[in-house]
C-alpha cells in the first residue's frame, strides 16, 4: 500500500467545496443556538446533523440494499443495471432528480454526460429511465433531449417527464428483472441489490420523519404542555389564530409567483407562516421532501427570531391607546370543561380535515392526558422524556438532510426570504383581525394579542406581554395572548390538512 492508497482510504479524498461552505453554515447555526439561544433545543441537533451530513461518513445515512421498485407504470426507456454489476454509492449523499421537469435540453445532456463519466469508472448510480404511460401531471413545457447512452456511441431520447431510478445502496445486483423496452407496473420490482450491510444509523432514525412519526409525537408533548384554559375562557380568540393563517396563504402565493417552485412545494413553504416547526416538517415531508431542510431551518430560525421580527410590526399597526387596552379578566375554566373541549376539537377538526388527524389527534391526546388528572405519569412522560427524545431525533434527522448540493441553491435563499415574509404577514393579519373585532365588540381586545396567532408557543404570547407592558407597565396580557397562541397551533394544523387534502398523491 502506498501513500496515495492510504490517502484514498481516509475521508479527505471525498471532501468538496460545498462541504466546506456548509461547515460555515453549521458554525453560524451553532453560534445562534449556543450563544444567542435561538431555539437551541432544535437548532443544536439540526446544526450537528448538518455537520454529519457534510462529512464523508460511513454507516450513517446509507440505505439498506434490497429491491428497487418502479414508482410509476410505464415503459423502460433505458436500463443500465445488469446482474452481477457492482454498485458503489458516493461517500456523501448526492441529490439526484427523480424527474427532469426543471431541466433544459442542455441540463439533461449534462446530467447524462456526468453519469456517463461515472459509468466509465464503475461508479454510476442511474439504473433505469421509465417513461410513464399516463400524461404528465407536472404542467411543465415538454422537453426532449438526445442523451448519450451510457458507455456507448448510441444516444437515447429523454423527455423531462421521464422518471429516473437511482441506486439507493451500495452492493451487487443479484437480479435485474427488466430491460429496455419492457412495460412495468407501478410498484413492480426492477432489480434486487444485495450487500452484507444493513443500512446506517440515520437511515433508520430518519424513518421517524419519512414515515411522519416524529411531528405527531412532538405534538403529543406540546398538547401535554399546553393549557387551553385561556382559549376556552375567551373562544373568540380562535379567530385571531385563524386570521394569522393568512400568512400561510400569502406566502404560498409569493412562492408560486417566484416561478421557482411547483404548487405543492409552494404549499410546503407557505406553512412556515404558521410558525409551527413540527407541522412545517410534517407537510414538507409529505409535499416536498427535497425542501425539508431549508423549510425546517427557516421555520425554527424565524420562530427564534419572533421577538425581533414581530415588535416593529406590532408597533407600526397599533396606536398607543390600543396598546393600553386592558382586557377583562379571564374566567376560571374547570377540568370537565377542558376535557369536553379536547374531545370536541378532536372530533370536529378530524371530521373537517382528516389529513391533519395525526397532528390534531396527538395534540389533543396529550392535552387530555394533562387535564384528566388521573394520568400524571403519562402526562409527565409526554411533557419531558418523550418530547425531549423525539426532539433530538427529529432535529438530527432534519439536519442530516442538509447536504451541500441540496442546501446551497437559489431556492434555499428564496425560502429563507419567504419565511420572513410569511411571519410578517401572519403577525400583521392577527393584529388587524383584533382591530376589526374591536369595531364590533363591546369587550375590547388589545390588538397586541393578535400577533400571538402565529403559533410559536409560548414565545409569541410573551412578545405580546412585553410589548403590552411597554405601553402600560401594569397591563398583563400573557394569559390573554395564550388564547390566540394555541388557536394558531390548531389553525396551522388545519391549513396543513387543507394542503394535504388538495395535493394528496401529487
Amino acid at each position: 500500500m502506498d501513500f496515495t492508497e492510504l490517502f484514498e482510504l481516509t475521508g479527505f479524498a471525498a471532501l468538496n467545496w460545498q462541504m466546506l461552505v456548509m461547515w460555515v453554515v453549521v458554525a453560524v447555526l451553532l453560534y445562534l443556538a449556543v450563544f444567542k439561544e435561538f431555539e437551541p433545543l432544535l437548532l443544536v441537533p439540526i446544526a450537528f446533523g448538518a455537520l454529519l451530513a457534510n462529512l464523508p461518513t460511513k454507516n450513517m445515512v446509507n440505505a439498506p440494499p434490497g429491491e428497487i421498485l418502479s414508482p410509476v407504470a410505464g415503459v423502460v426507456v433505458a436500463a443500465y443495471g445488469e446482474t452481477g454489476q457492482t454498485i458503489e454509492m458516493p461517500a456523501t449523499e448526492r441529490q439526484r432528480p427523480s424527474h427532469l421537469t426543471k431541466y433544459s435540453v442542455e441540463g439533461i445532456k449534462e446530467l447524462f454526460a456526468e453519469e456517463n463519466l461515472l459509468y466509465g469508472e464503475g461508479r454510476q448510480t442511474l439504473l433505469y429511465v421509465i417513461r410513464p404511460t399516463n400524461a404528465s401531471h407536472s404542467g411543465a413545457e415538454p422537453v426532449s433531449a438526445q442523451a448519450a447512452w451510457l458507455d456507448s456511441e448510441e444516444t437515447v431520447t429523454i423527455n423531462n417527464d421521464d422518471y429516473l431510478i437511482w441506486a439507493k445502496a451500495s452492493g451487487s445486483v443479484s437480479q435485474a428483472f427488466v430491460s429496455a423496452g419492457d412495460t412495468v407496473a407501478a410498484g413492480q420490482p426492477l432489480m434486487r441489490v444485495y450487500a452484507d450491510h444493513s443500512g446506517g444509523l440515520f437511515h433508520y432514525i430518519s424513518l421517524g420523519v419519512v414515515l411522519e412519526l416524529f411531528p405527531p409525537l412532538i405534538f403529543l408533548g406540546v398538547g401535554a404542555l399546553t393549557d387551553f384554559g385561556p382559549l376556552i375562557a375567551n373562544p373568540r380568540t380562535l379567530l385571531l389564530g385563524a386570521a394569522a393563517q393568512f400568512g400561510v396563504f400569502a406566502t404560498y402565493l409569493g412562492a408560486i409567483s417566484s416561478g421557482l417552485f411547483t404548487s405543492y412545494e409552494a404549499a410546503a413553504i407557505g406553512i412556515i407562516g404558521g410558525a409551527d416547526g413540527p407541522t412545517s416538517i410534517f407537510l414538507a415531508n409529505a409535499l416536498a421532501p427535497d425542501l425539508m431542510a431549508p423549510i425546517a431551518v427557516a421555520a425554527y430560525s424565524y420562530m427564534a427570531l419572533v421577538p425581533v421580527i414581530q415588535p416593529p410590526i406590532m408597533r407600526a399597526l397599533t396606536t398607543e391607546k390600543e396598546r393600553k387596552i386592558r382586557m377583562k379578566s379571564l374566567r376560571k375554566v374547570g377540568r370537565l370543561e377542558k376535557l369536553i373541549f379536547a374531545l370536541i376539537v378532536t372530533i370536529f377538526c378530524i371530521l373537517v380535515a382528516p389529513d391533519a388527524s395525526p397532528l390534531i389527534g396527538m395534540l389533543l391526546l396529550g392535552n387530555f392526558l394533562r387535564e384528566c388528572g388521573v394520568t400524571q405519569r403519562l402526562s409527565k412522560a409526554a411533557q419531558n422524556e418523550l418530547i425531549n427524545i423525539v426532539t433530538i431525533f427529529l432535529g438530527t434527522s432534519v439536519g442530516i438532510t442538509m447536504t451541500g448540493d441540496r442546501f446551497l441553491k437559489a431556492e434555499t435563499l428564496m425560502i429563507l426570504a419567504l419565511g420572513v415574509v410569511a411571519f410578517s404577514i401572519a403577525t400583521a393579519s392577527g393584529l388587524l383581525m383584533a382591530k376589526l373585532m374591536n369595531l364590533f365588540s363591546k369587550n375590547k381586545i388589545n390588538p397586541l394579542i393578535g400577533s400571538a396567532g402565529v403559533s410559536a408557543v409560548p414565545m409569541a404570547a410573551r412578545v405580546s406581554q412585553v410589548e403590552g407592558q411597554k405601553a402600560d407597565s401594569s397591563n398583563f396580557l400573557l394569559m390573554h395572548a395564550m388564547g390566540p397562541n394555541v388557536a394558531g397551533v390548531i389553525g396551522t394544523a388545519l391549513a396543513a390538512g387543507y394542503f394535504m387534502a388538495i395535493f394528496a398523491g401529487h
Partner: protein
Amino acid sequence: MPAHPTMAHNIKFIVFGFAFVIIVLLTLAAITQLVGLAFKQPEKPKPAPVAKAPAPAAEAAPVPAEDEMDSALTAVIVAAAVHAVIGDQPHRILSIRPSQSGWAQEGRRQIFSSHSVR
C-alpha cells in the same frame, strides 16, 4: 391541483383555503362558547368591605358559623403576619380591610419579571 396552476386557480385555492380555516375555527369558537355557557358561574355580588373589625372579631353582630370562623381565621392570619413583620413591639390591630388590587399586581409583576424575554 396542477403543479403550475394559473393565477386564477391560485387565487381560488387561497380564498377557499383561508375561508376554510376561518369557518372551521369560527364554528369551533361558537361551540366552545355554547359549552362555556353551561359552565359559567353566575357572577357573585362583590363582598362588602369589612368594616373596622377589632381583633378578635368575636364582638361583631351574630354571624353565621362559617363567616365567624372565616373572620377569626383572618384575624389570626393578620395578627401572625403583623407579628412576623414588627416582632414583639406593642401593637393593636384596629381594622382589617380587603386590600386593593396592588398585592395581586405586585405578585404578577414579580412572576413576569422572573421570565427573561429576549
